[in-house]
């Protein structure tokens, strides 16, 4: 049994003037203890929505269907009250906005200790000691607990967010673009920190990012999302080297290479609107190798190797891409 399993997840958002957007369309994946899993795609592809849905954190304009199984038990089925118990205790999260994820008027120590008291993992002097440990763990002196978020730099704040996420020793850490707002050197440090901590603490990590090379560095496995659907998933290095979906291949080519001189490729066009039903393959208008079937038929996920699947008609054993 997997640690966390997400089965056939759909999310619709109601639009203010009627109509809905099908933001996440039948996404499923499974996560083993200690595994590092990447969720990749352009902004707007539904990857952030997916992990917010895992924790039941979507706004009331969202309708969610599907199951989220934690150790085999559906945590969303019991509504807000039941999912609340699992938040931070089992699944914690590091948010994209390093600047704003911390409350500006509370000390960082207070914010790190807060969930401990609430979930009953530690209180009082023990909680304070634990705050110190956590800060040291992410490379910040324990004495910084009494300071306010604005006294830290962006990278330091992201470290604080990570320390805060570790407060209740969660089994799973969700990281939503944790390095987006940071400069390159700091990005590398934060990723290194995340990798090291998940290894040391035996925590599973879901890393949401638009940066495919980062995923192949950090993660064991990854899924690529496009227009609310999972189009490919498999071992991280195979996605980089032997992608079976043209979108994954183009996404990799479109990422700036820090060390190389290669010309940067772009993917022409933009993702489809999600407020109407899409016929055929959602990626067809931007695809560089479309087939005749793509316009009318929706490609399903099919195996492409050991633990590797892709949703493309060219993903046939006899048709190398």
């Amino acid at each position, binding site marked *: 049994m997997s640690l966390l399993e997400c089965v056939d997840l759909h999310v619709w958002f109601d639009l203010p003037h009627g109509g809905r957007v099908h*933001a996440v369309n039948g996404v499923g994946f499974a996560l083993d203890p200690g595994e590092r899993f990447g969720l990749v795609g352009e902004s707007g592809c539904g990857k*952030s929505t997916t992990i*917010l849905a895992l924790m039941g954190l*979507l706004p009331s304009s969202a309708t969610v269907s599907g199951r989220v199984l934690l150790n085999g038990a559906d945590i969303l089925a019991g509504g807000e009250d039941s999912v609340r118990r699992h938040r931070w205790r089992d699944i914690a999260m590091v948010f994209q906005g390093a600047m704003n994820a911390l409350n500006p008027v509370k000390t960082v120590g207070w914010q790190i200790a807060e969930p401990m008291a609430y979930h009953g993992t530690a209180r009082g002097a023990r909680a304070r000691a634990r705050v110190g440990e956590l800060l040291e763990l992410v490379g910040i002196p324990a004495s910084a607990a009494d300071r306010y978020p604005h006294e830290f730099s962006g990278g330091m704040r992201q470290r604080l967010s990570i320390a805060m996420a570790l407060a209740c020793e969660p089994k799973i850490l969700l990281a939503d673009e944790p390095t987006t707002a940071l400069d390159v050197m700091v990005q590398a440090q934060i990723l290194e920190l995340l990798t090291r901590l998940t290894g040391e603490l035996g925590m599973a990590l879901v890393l949401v990012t638009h940066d495919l090379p980062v995923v192949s560095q950090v993660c064991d496995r990854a899924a690529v999302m496009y227009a609310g659907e999972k189009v490919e998933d498999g071992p991280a290095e195979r996605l980089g080297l032997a992608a079976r979906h043209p979108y994954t291949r183009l996404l990799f080519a479109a990422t700036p290479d820090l060390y190389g001189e290669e010309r940067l490729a772009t993917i022409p066009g933009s993702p489809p609107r999600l407020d109407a039903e899409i016929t055929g393959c959602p990626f067809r208008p931007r695809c560089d190798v479309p087939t005749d079937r793509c316009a009318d038929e929706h490609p399903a996920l099919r195996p492409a190797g050991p633990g590797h699947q892709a949703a493309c008609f060219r993903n046939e054993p006899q048709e190398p891409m």
Partner: protein
Amino acid sequence: MSVHIGEAAPAAVAGRRPAGLFRTVTRERRGAAVGLGILAVFVVLSVFAPYLAPYSTTDGTCAVYAPPSPRHWLGCDDGGVDMLSLLMRGGQTSLVVGFTATLVSILIGGAVGLASGYFGGWTDVALMRVTDCLLVLPDLVLAMVIAAVWGPSLFHVILVIGLLEWTATARIVRAEVMSLRERAYVKRARGLGAGDARVIVRHVLPHVGPLLIANTVLTVSAAIYMETALAFLGLEDPGVTTWGTILQHAFARTAISSNAWWAIVPDGFVIAAVSVGCFLLGQAIEDALNPRLKVAHLSARRWRLRTLAGKGADAR
């Protein structure tokens, strides 16, 4: 998932933002139309008050504190004067006070803001210090004292209100002029040797104008409100009828012990209606001019400060 606080606004939702913006705009247009409608009704009623008023506003036409009846819809006051006619007559004067006092305050505030924003430096520091000082002083108390020292008259009331309500205008105009001054075409005009007067008249005023109009509408209700307060304190010319003096008469002449609510209640509603009308219209104009200001807490703050106290919008 039952209770949800906060909109996580996931980046995944395409097309949500334009839809939200569209809704905001339509809502504001509706607000503007409603506000304009309210004000138009009152202006028409006031202008044609002498022809529309069903009864005399000086002579009694029914019993003392006669309750509302089919002949006198809003009853009568202590002198047997028809309340509806009185309200129309009072609205005439109140609106005149509101608009002329606003004109005075816009002229002062506009000039101060223009000078402060355009010339900057010490002019700016000195003028803004004075503005800030005036901003913290309790304006009704000051107005009371000045009006009392000068003696009760309609002209003095208008002047006092105009002299005290200009601070918000000055601050807003200053901010706008400061940003204008930095724009390329103004800089180029100055670089080409245009004099200050020419730059102000040709390049700055046309852009500040619409903002002044919005501000005028918003200040009118503050002025009317201030007039009712001064009149209530007996500082209005006893010979004129305004919405303020109607309340004062009712209070001074035992409307309460006579339980004559009709001499009091409708008056408050017309004042509130004009206040809401001014707010809706002014806010809509201002938002149309300056979408950048469309921050919810700013408008809420301004709403109060403009309509009631008439003070600084940028309380940042």
